[in-house]
């Protein structure tokens, strides 16, 4: 009992002692950046160790240089829904004017984002939005018009397969909102009679883990002997799928191709697939420019923060060097069309 008291006393004592001088430089009073002070941008990606977000970061830094702002990237070590909460709280406490975040889950950040905004922080989501909870952020910069990704993927698939045969989708987690939206878009597009011979046989989930994605991809090859194609709208999934096709030799022209072989397309960062493209395992795939996304987010955020623009439908703003961007519904801005990577251009990219 005595020990408990000692411990409790020590804690209270330390807290009390520590809190003494704090009011002198009460952080909350100076958090909202005045017009004259440097804009402080904090970027919270989904998780650490992902070069895709390193590209976004690069774009942010480029814009920050132009804006005279500072950028700091704080990536949680695990990509789960709660890990970003701590990171955001600490960033806000340290001092931040513009929070750029790629949300891991659509609905767990509401409180912490509200709190940040109450303290004068502008919140812009990039890459993945908090769908269904848009009121808790100021604006969102998304890669491409979500509605256009599905059709684009189907079209790419059709051009590679001659619009016929069985195909499967290898996605990330079952609850990744972007992925699900794109898959829904693909299914919608497939209803078009011109794709009637393309048959989606299965959708599997690799959780964006190499091992899981590989196992799922291998299982697909076993389950569907007549498989003609695989679409994977995620980097890790495509990387794993390419690896499996190469190992099993079932890519078009591979040693075990059984006729035309299995084609692979989807969305991925180019570095991941350079070798596969060079070897002919993969013909083409797509992605937008993550760096541009970061650049737009920084400029837009800075304008929102200084109230130079409001995120209303149809309002437009200019991004230096990228022309005019328009807000669509719910404060969303799209970056632009998909880039296609193939043998001819892949060497020019490094991310």
């Amino acid at each position, binding site marked *: 009992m005595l020990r408990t008291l000692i411990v409790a006393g020590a804690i209270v004592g330390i807290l009390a002692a520590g809190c003494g001088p704090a009011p002198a430089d009460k952080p909350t009073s100076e958090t909202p950046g005045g017009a004259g002070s440097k804009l402080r941008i904090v970027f919270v990606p989904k*998780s*650490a*160790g*992902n*070069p895709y*977000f*390193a590209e976004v*970061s690069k774009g942010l830094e480029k814009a920050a240089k132009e804006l005279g702002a500072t950028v700091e*990237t704080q*990536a949680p*070590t*695990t*990509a789960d829904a709660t890990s970003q909460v701590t990171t955001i709280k600490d960033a806000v406490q340290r001092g931040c004017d513009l929070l750029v975040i790629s949300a891991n889950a659509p609905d767990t950040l509401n409180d912490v984002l509200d709190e940040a905004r109450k303290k004068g922080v502008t919140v812009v989501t990039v890459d993945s939005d908090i769908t269904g909870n848009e009121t808790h952020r100021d604006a969102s910069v998304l890669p491409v018009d979500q509605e256009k990704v599905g059709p684009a993927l189907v079209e790419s698939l059709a051009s590679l397969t001659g619009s016929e045969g069985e195909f499967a989708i290898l996605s990330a987690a*079952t609850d990744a909102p972007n992925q699900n939206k794109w898959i829904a878009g693909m299914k919608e597009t497939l209803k078009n009679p011109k794709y009637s011979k393309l048959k989606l046989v*299965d959708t*599997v*989930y690799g959780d*964006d*883990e*190499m*091992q899981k994605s*590989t*196992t*799922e991809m*291998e*299982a697909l*090859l*076993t*389950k569907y002997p007549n498989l003609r194609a695989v679409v994977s709208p995620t980097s*890790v999934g495509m*990387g*794993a799928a*390419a*690896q499996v096709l*190469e*190992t*099993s*030799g079932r890519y078009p022209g591979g040693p075990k191709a059984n006729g035309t072989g299995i084609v692979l397309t989807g969305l991925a960062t180019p*570095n*991941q*697939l*350079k*070798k*596969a493209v060079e070897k002919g395992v993969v013909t083409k795939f797509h992605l937008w420019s993550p760096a541009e996304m970061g650049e737009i987010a920084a400029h837009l955020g800075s304008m929102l923060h200084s109230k130079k623009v409001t995120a209303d439908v149809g309002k437009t703003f200019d991004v230096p060097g990228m022309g005019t961007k328009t807000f669509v519904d719910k404060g969303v801005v799209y970056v632009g069309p998909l880039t296609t990577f193939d043998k001819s251009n892949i060497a020019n990219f490094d991310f």
Partner: protein
Amino acid sequence: MTVLVVVAATARDPRFLSPQTLDSVLLWLPVLLVVALGQMPVIVTKGIDISVGSTVGLVAFSVGLIGKVNPSLPVPVLFASGLALGALLGSLNAVLVAIAKVPPVVTTIGTLTAFRGMAFLVAQGKQIDTNNVATALTDLGRNGVHLGPITVNWLLWLAFIPGALLAWVLARSAIGRTVYAVGGNPVAAALRGMDVKRILFSVYIWSGACAGLAGVLYLGRYGFVSAASAGVNLELNAIAAVVVGGVPVSGGSGSVLGVLAGCVLLAVVNVGLSVLGIAADWQLLAYGAVVMAALLVDAVGRRAKESSVVAA
């Protein structure tokens, strides 16, 4: 147990029993097997090494980086550096457990976190992708010895090296028998003049070295390493495989063949869940249930054995 799972799976979907599935299982095995082989002597000495998952991740990334910077390095050098780095990390556990006498669970939970953090620091936000990995290394998973329609990939052959070594050491060598002795009765081992400290030290280094090797195998198998996900939860799978393979957590006994069987079971279950098309949302549940069933079968078997000993 493995047979049961295979029969059940085949009954559900005959496609399960295809060469392609077998190839998947064989490709799934090497990394887990090597980590489990490392774990086994640790568990035999009543210890545990939870840090191996992070060791695999850190080594896979570091070796990937070495290969990226010096693309001309021959593959054996990559394996050697993986082994050396793994052993180095293992020796940190060894010092803490054998010399500083920190309980193994605490030590390795600590290093689990620390090694993962180090992997992030080494990674600097980058990842290793196929682009950076020597083709000679990734080819080890693509080629192998063809036995009829099945390909026994080179990675698995490489995994058999520590397996054979461990089997020989445990069954035949003085150090191996001492491992069993220390696990069976540590007090007696000390009084019999055995160097308990040295044995503990060795098993943790062995575990680290195996995890290091597994890291290179991981690199060869997937050609892609992300600091955040490489080797995550591998320690739990490895421990489960060892225990399902008949090594009691109370130490003192167990065989390498049993561990192999445990790994095969887990590999079959994991591949099977995907091949059978168990919905993604149900896979974790199915996996947990199978592991639990294996443990219960094991416990019932143990009970039967105990009562027969009393009767004898």
